[in-house]
C-alpha cells in the first residue's frame, strides 16, 4: 500500500504542476463559460409554461452563435483530458530510465499502474466537478431560477457518468502507454481511436443501417424504426455514443428512450406529449450504458496488467 500511495501522491502533484493541466483547464473553463452564457441568453425562448426542469434546460439549450450545448462540449473535452493525463504514464518512465529504478523498489507493479490511474482519475474528477459547479453557479445567477432537489441529483449523476466516461479514456491511454514504447505513438493512437469513435462509428452505422434497411420518403414507421434500431446498435460500439445517450436521458427527462427518432415516432403515433421520467427510471435506462463504460475500462486495465506484469524491465 505504501507504494501505491507514494506513486499516487507523486503523480497527482505532477499533474497539478504540469503545463498540460493548466492549458486543459483554461480551455475547458472558457468553453464551459461560453456555452452557459449562450444558453442563458436563449433559455427564455425555449421554456414554456409546462417546462418542469428549467434549471436543467440551461445545460441543454444552445444558441445560434455557438450551436453546441454544454454536454456536447464536455463529450468533446473529456476524452482529451483522459488521454492527456494517461498517454505517457508508463512509457515516459521507460524512456527516461526511471522505470527500472522504480521497479527495483519494493512495490508491486500493479501499484504503478493503479497509482497513476487513480491520480489521473482524481485530477479528472476535480476538473469535471469544478466546471459543472462553476457553470451551474453562473447559470443560477443569470437566470435566477434555483434548481430543484431532483435536478441537483441529476447533475450529480451527470458528473459521475462524465467521470466514468473520462475514466475509460484514461485507462485506454494508460493501456497504450504500456503497449507502445514511444509517447508520441501512444498519444497518436489514443487520439486516432477517439476520432474514430467520435466521428466514424456513427457514419459507418448510418451506412450499414441504410444498406440493410433502406429508408426513403414513403417508408412506413416500422421500417424507419428498424433502420434506427440497427443504427443505434452499431453506434453503441462507441463509448462516446454510450455517454451521449446517458447524458441525454439524465438531462432531458422528457425523453424516455435514448433514441430521439423513436421518441418522435411514439409522439407521432400515440399523439401525445411524453411525461418526464422519474430519476429512478432515468437511472434504470442509463444503467446498461454506464456498466458498459465501466466494463470497457476494466478491459483496458486487464490488458495493461497482462502486458506489464511479466514484462522484462531493461534500462536500455
Amino acid at each position, binding site marked *: 500500500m505504501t507504494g501505491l500511495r507514494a506513486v499516487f501522491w*507523486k503523480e497527482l502533484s505532477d499533474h497539478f504542476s504540469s503545463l498540460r493541466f493548466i492549458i486543459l483547464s483554461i480551455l475547458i473553463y472558457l468553453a464551459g463559460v461560453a456555452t452557459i452564457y449562450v444558453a442563458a441568453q436563449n433559455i427564455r425562448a425555449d421554456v414554456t409554461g409546462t417546462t418542469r426542469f428549467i434549471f436543467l434546460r440551461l445545460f441543454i439549450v444552445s444558441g445560434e452563435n455557438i450551436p453546441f450545448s454544454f454536454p456536447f462540449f464536455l463529450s468533446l473535452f473529456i476524452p482529451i483530458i483522459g488521454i492527456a493525463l494517461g498517454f505517457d504514464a508508463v512509457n515516459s518512465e521507460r524512456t527516461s530510465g*526511471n522505470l*527500472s529504478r522504480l521497479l527495483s523498489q519494493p512495490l508491486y507493479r500493479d501499484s504503478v499502474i493503479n497509482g497513476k490511474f487513480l491520480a489521473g482519475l482524481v485530477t479528472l474528477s476535480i476538473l469535471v466537478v469544478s466546471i459543472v459547479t462553476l457553470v451551474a453557479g453562473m447559470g443560477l445567477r443569470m437566470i435566477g431560477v434555483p434548481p430543484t432537489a431532483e435536478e441537483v441529483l441529476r447533475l450529480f449523476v451527470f458528473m459521475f457518468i462524465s467521470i466514468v466516461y473520462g475514466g475509460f479514456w484514461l485507462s485506454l491511454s494508460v493501456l497504450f502507454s504500456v503497449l507502445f514504447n514511444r509517447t508520441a505513438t501512444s498519444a497518436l493512437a489514443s487520439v486516432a481511436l477517439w476520432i474514430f469513435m467520435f466521428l466514424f462509428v456513427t457514419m459507418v452505422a448510418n451506412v450499414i443501417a441504410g444498406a440493410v434497411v433502406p429508408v426513403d420518403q414513403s417508408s412506413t414507421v416500422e421500417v424507419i424504426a428498424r433502420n434506427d434500431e440497427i443504427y443505434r446498435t452499431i453506434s453503441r460500439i462507441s463509448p462516446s455514443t454510450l455517454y451521449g445517450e446517458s447524458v441525454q436521458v439524465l438531462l432531458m427527462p422528457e425523453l424516455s428512450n435514448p433514441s430521439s427518432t423513436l421518441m418522435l415516432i411514439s409522439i407521432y403515433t400515440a399523439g401525445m406529449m411524453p411525461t418526464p421520467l422519474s430519476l429512478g427510471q432515468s437511472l434504470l435506462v442509463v444503467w446498461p450504458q454506464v456498466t458498459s463504460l465501466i466494463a470497457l475500462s476494466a478491459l483496458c486495465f486487464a490488458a495493461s496488467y497482462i502486458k506489464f506484469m511479466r514484462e*522484462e524491465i531493461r*534500462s536500455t
Partner: protein
Amino acid sequence: MSAEYAIATEELVKVYGAKVAVDRLNLRVAEGEVFGFLGPNGAGKTTTILMLLGLTEPTSGSARVYGNDPTREPLKVKRIAGYLPEKVGFYDDMTAKQNLEYTAALNGIPVEVAEKKIEELLKLVGLADVAEHKVGTFSHGMKQRLGIADVMVKDPKIAFFDEPTAGIDPEGTDQVLTLIKSMAKRGVTIVISSHQLHQVQKVCTRVGIMANGRLVAEGSVDELGRQVIGGGKFRIEVQVSQPSDRLVNAIKGVKGVGNVEVNGDRLLISCDEDIRAQIARVIVDSESLLVQMKIEEYSLDDIYLRYFRES
C-alpha cells in the same frame, strides 16, 4: 540452499528466442563481498542481475538473494537490494532531493527519518550544494553519484551496480569507485558488472568472468592471474647479447623465479615479486651483456583476454 550466501544461483538459465543469454549459471557470492562481474557486452551480466532482482523471469533454474526467491517473492528481495541500472534516469523536473524523497516514500521510510538521511547522503556523494537543483541540469557523473545515494536511501544489504563507471570522466569514475568502496566498508554486499576491468580491479575482492552466458572463471584477481599464466604476478622481459643454457639455469636459480621462456635473445621470466635487481646481477655475473630489461604486471585485462581467446 543456505542463507549464508548473499547470492546463490542453481543452474540459472535465460533464453531469448534462439539465443541463450545465461547458460546454467551457478554463482555464489558471500555476504560482505565486493564481487566484480566481468565480461564483454552481451555476455549475460545484466540479464543475470535482472533475474536476481525479479525484473525478469528465469527460463529455468533458481536464484536466491539472502535466501529469498526473486521470482516468487520479489518484494522481499527488493526491500534489501539496491539497484543502479546502466542507464539510470531520474525525474528531470524534480530536484535531487525530491527524487530521493520519492524513493524513500516508495520504501515506506517515514518522512522525518528520510529527510535526515537524504541530507547525509547528498553530503556523502558531494551533491549537497545542488540538492535543490533540478536533476535535468546534472551531468552524467552527477547523476551516477545521485544514483548511488538513491541506492543507499533504503539501507540495502546488497547493492547491484550495472556498469557504474561507463561514460564518466576519470575523476568521476574515481569518485564513484570511492563511494562504492565506502559502501562496502559499511558491510553492504556489492555486485559490480563492468567491462572496464582495471577499474573493477581496484575495488573488487573477487571477480567472475562471464562469456556467452557462462561463468568461465571465478576467484580473486591474483588467483585468476595464476590460473591463467601459470606463473607469478610479474613478467620480466630481458634482452641479452648471448643467451645460453647456463644463464637460463642461473636465472632459474634465483629465488622467486617461476618460469623462464627463451625467445631468441629474449628471456621471459615470470615471478611473484619484482626481482629485477637480482636477475640483473646474475646476468652481469655471466659472460653475457644486458641489453635491456622490462617488467610488466599482469593486469586483469591479460587474464580476461586470455579467457576470451579460449572461449
